[in-house]
């Protein structure tokens, strides 16, 4: 008895028990309702886009790990999230070949080159999305109306465009509420926006489901609630003020909140822990900055939607925020940095 080998390790010897893969798994759970709704709203085409993105991301992660001689990191679940998020931010009839390129670049360019999970300066899914936006601006702004007839049986020629060839858009296309507003000053009904009865990217339309997913993660303490609250709050207040100044020129704050990718971005992309600041105050500054940029780009910029760029810029700024915003160390005077 008692001759067995002991294990030694550093204190503390107990752990809270929430590990990184648990967090990632829960984020995937929170995203699933949106996937289901998206497929319901946009049909099988959307499903193909999401699957393509998922496979591309997970496959790239695995292959790159194998190539660089490291153990595969797909089990941490971050690539799955990237894949789902990328898929959810693309238009429903986005060509699969472009989706795959986006997925590969999300992982390779967005994460791998910077040293993998934890070192990526930008949200990988958004890196992929931004690349696609810059590379294929037409395809990525070709929308498909929600709840159209035959959406489950009709396979879009655009989705299955031959690799590297220009997608041919057959049938009707729809405009997103944001572009309709930007170019024709037409606003959509807030209720339709909240329920997701409008056109847009695959996963961004139902503000309600997104909010539910976010709340699930917040209650499980797997997401920093300050980020979505500060982003949405800033957008609401700022656009509210503008709306009060001139309701004809500026859209209502509800329209701003529920339209486009704001909800999805604020809940699932800006909250990417790696790209956001680490301190509570820093996180709020980050959120306000993103909210501000969303309003500025949407209202005065050239693009109808600015959430993606706003979050990427927020990501770029967050090292600075972390550098400047440091909590006062216990027992130090406030004057010291």
């Amino acid at each position, binding site marked *: 008895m008692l001759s067995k080998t002991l294990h030694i390790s550093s204190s503390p010897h107990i752990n809270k028990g929430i590990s990184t893969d648990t967090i990632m798994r829960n984020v995937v759970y929170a995203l699933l309702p949106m996937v289901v709704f998206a497929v319901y709203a946009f049909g099988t085409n959307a499903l193909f886009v999401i699957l393509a993105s998922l496979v591309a991301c997970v496959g790239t992660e695995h292959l790159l790990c194998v190539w*660089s001689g490291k153990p595969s990191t797909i089990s941490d679940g971050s690539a799955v999230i990237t894949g789902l998020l990328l898929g959810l931010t693309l238009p429903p009839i986005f060509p699969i070949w472009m989706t795959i390129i986006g997925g590969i670049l999300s992982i390779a*360019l*967005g994460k*791998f*080159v*910077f*040293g*993998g999970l*934890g*070192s990526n*300066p*930008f949200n990988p899914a958004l*890196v992929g999305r*931004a*690349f696609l*936006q*810059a590379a294929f601006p037409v395809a990525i702004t070709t929308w498909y109306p929600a709840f159209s007839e035959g959406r489950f049986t009709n396979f879009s020629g655009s989705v299955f465009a031959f690799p590297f060839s220009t997608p041919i858009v057959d049938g009707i296309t729809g405009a997103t509420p944001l572009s309709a507003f930007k170019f024709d000053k037409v606003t959509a009904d807030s209720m339709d926006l909240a329920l997701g009865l409008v056109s847009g990217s695959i996963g961004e339309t139902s503000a309600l489901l997104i909010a539910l997913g976010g709340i699930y993660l917040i209650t499980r303490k797997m997401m920093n609630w300050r980020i979505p609250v500060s982003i949405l709050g800033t957008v609401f207040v700022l656009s509210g003020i503008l709306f009060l100044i001139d309701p004809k020129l500026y859209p209502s704050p509800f329209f701003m909140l529920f339209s486009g990718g704001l909800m999805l971005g604020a809940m699932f992309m800006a909250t990417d822990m790696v790209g956001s600041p680490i301190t509570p105050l820093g996180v709020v500054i980050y959120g306000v900055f993103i909210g501000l*940029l969303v309003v*500025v*780009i949407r209202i*005065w*910029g*050239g*693009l109808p939607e*600015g959430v*993606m*760029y*706003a979050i*990427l*810029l927020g990501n*770029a*700024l*967050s*090292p*600075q925020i972390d*550098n400047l915003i440091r909590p006062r160390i216990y027992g130090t005077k406030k004057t010291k940095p």
Partner: protein
Amino acid sequence: MNTESYWTILINASLVNNFVLAYFLGICPFLGVSGKMETASKMGGAVTFVMLISSVCAYGIHALLVAINAPFLELISYIVVIAATVQLVEMFIKKMSPALFRALGIFLPLITTNCAILGLALFQTSKGYDLGQSLIFAIGAGLGFTLALVLMAGIREQLEYAEVPDVVKGTALTLLAAGLLSLTFMGFSGLG
């Protein structure tokens, strides 16, 4: 002959057409000095300062060359006068304020033969800005340069401790990050 408003010039020069990320001006210092946050911000300040000086210089030279009808001397005069003026200012600062010299001065020689500076002078001439517009243009370009440099420094400071694959290490990594930053700045398109 240019009627752009100061605001448009400022936003355009700093964000939409960022000198580094859209015009590729000043890439060398951008790649070289963006490793540390502190040096990056100082460098940004120094560049903005030199831009203001050279903007005034370029405006003066242009007017003078138009007067004596010798446009062909534009380039050579720009480079020589700007270099000389910066040198002069450097000596002046060294004498007047050693503290300021330590903060700014060490970067000045680096900056003199920098394409961002000369580019600024050439652009303001070709766009036909008046003195006020030129100064705003210089401030905007300087701010944009500083912004790009500082953001890059933040990213690179973080990457310093990342397990970057061997193939990517070095300039390639910085360029990739710069590319992503450039992609990000596309969000500002159409502003102003």
